[in-house]
């Protein structure tokens, strides 16, 4: 390398070696990894809020059969003398409210069958059935109520697109992450090993569990022999509102 040796001796930078690529194309080719990292970094910043929201609400909803991630719900019961049918609504309400001990403004009273229901403006619901008064109350969990609501995209048209965009960003983060670093810490050893470990978890689970195909499924079809014929009709004498037949009505969609 005589040119380099001369340049070092004279303290002038060496000329770059000649390449087949010139101009912007050459720059991009040489610098693509730097661009990849820079975009990865910025998308990473963008994704912080989304990731925290989806990760925490995802954990919360994964364990929904252990706790209620959305609400603090309480239910207490109190014993009373059963409310006789002849007792007026006002007196029944007074007796039930006293037993329930709910502080707050009564919004409404509903009485039907053996039930008397009181609704309070603070959300408390009080129901008297026989000798038991049940007080039901629930309050939102501050963060999870909103996060879980956002996590479930059903019925949220605009948010669905935002969530799709976030998913696309995550895909970029995952794929660009593979190529960010060269050498032993990259795909040659550490990166490849960890990718395999990461893939092994879902693949291993599918293999061990047998996957969805392992379920003992039985497709439901019309099975005329299993259907009991409807019993003969009885005349309607209870004041229930009859509806016109809707044989030809199109099915409702979800």
């Amino acid at each position, binding site marked *: 390398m005589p040119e380099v040796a001369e340049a070092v001796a004279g303290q002038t930078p060496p000329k770059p070696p000649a390449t087949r690529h010139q101009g912007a194309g050459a720059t991009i080719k040489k610098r693509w990894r730097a661009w990849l990292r820079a975009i990865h970094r910025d998308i990473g910043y963008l994704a912080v809020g989304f990731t925290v929201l989806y990760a925490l609400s995802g954990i919360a909803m994964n364990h929904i059969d252990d706790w209620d991630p959305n609400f603090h719900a309480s239910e207490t019961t109190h014993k009373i003398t059963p409310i006789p049918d002849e007792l007026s609504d006002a007196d029944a309400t007074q007796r039930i409210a006293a037993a329930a001990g709910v502080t707050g403004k009564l919004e409404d009273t*509903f009485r039907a069958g053996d039930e008397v229901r009181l609704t309070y403006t603070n959300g408390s619901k009080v129901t008297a059935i026989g000798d038991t008064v049940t007080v039901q109350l629930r309050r939102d969990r501050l963060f999870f109520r909103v996060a879980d609501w956002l996590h479930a995209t059903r019925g949220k048209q605009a948010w669905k697109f935002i969530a799709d965009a976030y998913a696309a960003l995550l895909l970029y983060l995952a794929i660009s992450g593979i190529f960010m670093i060269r050498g032993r810490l990259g795909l040659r050893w550490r990166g490849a090993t960890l990718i395999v470990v990461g893939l092994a978890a879902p693949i291993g689970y599918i293999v061990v569990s047998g996957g969805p195909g392992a379920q003992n499924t039985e497709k439901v079809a019309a099975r005329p022999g299993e259907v009991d014929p409807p019993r003969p009709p009885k005349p309607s004498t209870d004041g229930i509102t009859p509806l016109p037949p809707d044989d030809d009505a199109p099915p409702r969609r979800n």
Partner: protein
Amino acid sequence: MRDSRRPDLDRFPELAKAWDRRQFVKSAAVGTAFMALGGALVRIAGDDLSKQARAEKRSDGRTRLPPGQRALDELRPMGGEEGDGDVRRWKLRVHGLCKSPFELDYAELLKLPQVQKEADVHCVTGWSLVGGLWKGVPIATLAEKAEVKSEARFVIFEAAHGYTANAPLKEATADTAMVTYRLNGKPLALQHGAPVRGLVPDLYFWKSAKWLTGIKFVKADEPGYWETRGYNNHADPWKEERYA
């Protein structure tokens, strides 16, 4: 004794950071695995209710607890888009392939013949409520009142915000299937479908639509919300028909 794999950090201090990180990652992995295993063991060891339910048989010969389920003594709130839960505004529409479709409100529902039955319910996520005492009106009674036509094969449960769930007519009109408004002598809580939900206990619990607004009888099957999202169309817990 020095770890033979440990680099000589006195000679190569620049490796100290990488070595520390490796030790941290190892410790974190071991700690997480230990906690997960411990939690699982605590859950399994303390689950007498499930052991008892597994040992019992139903009258039809099947085990009381379907495979892959653990028993609980109360319902878990599983989410969903809630209805408003107000009995004053609640109405149930019974329609479809029937000669006398009708609509009734909550007070009218309470005037129909009521039943109270003990039934276990099984959530597809793996828990079962055993020994719940449910009160309501049998779906067979509603079918009879609506004069369901002989060609009807399926029942579609319609609920708040367009949710639907389908079930074969035979299972939806079985003895224990009903529209229910009371569990263990108490009104249903809003998160459990108040004021009225469906109950088809021998199918996975998502078929028992919460915040029920309608029951439709149809000839051709109409897979519902979860059935069109990868869950099984039939959903028999004893066959573990969880997914499509």
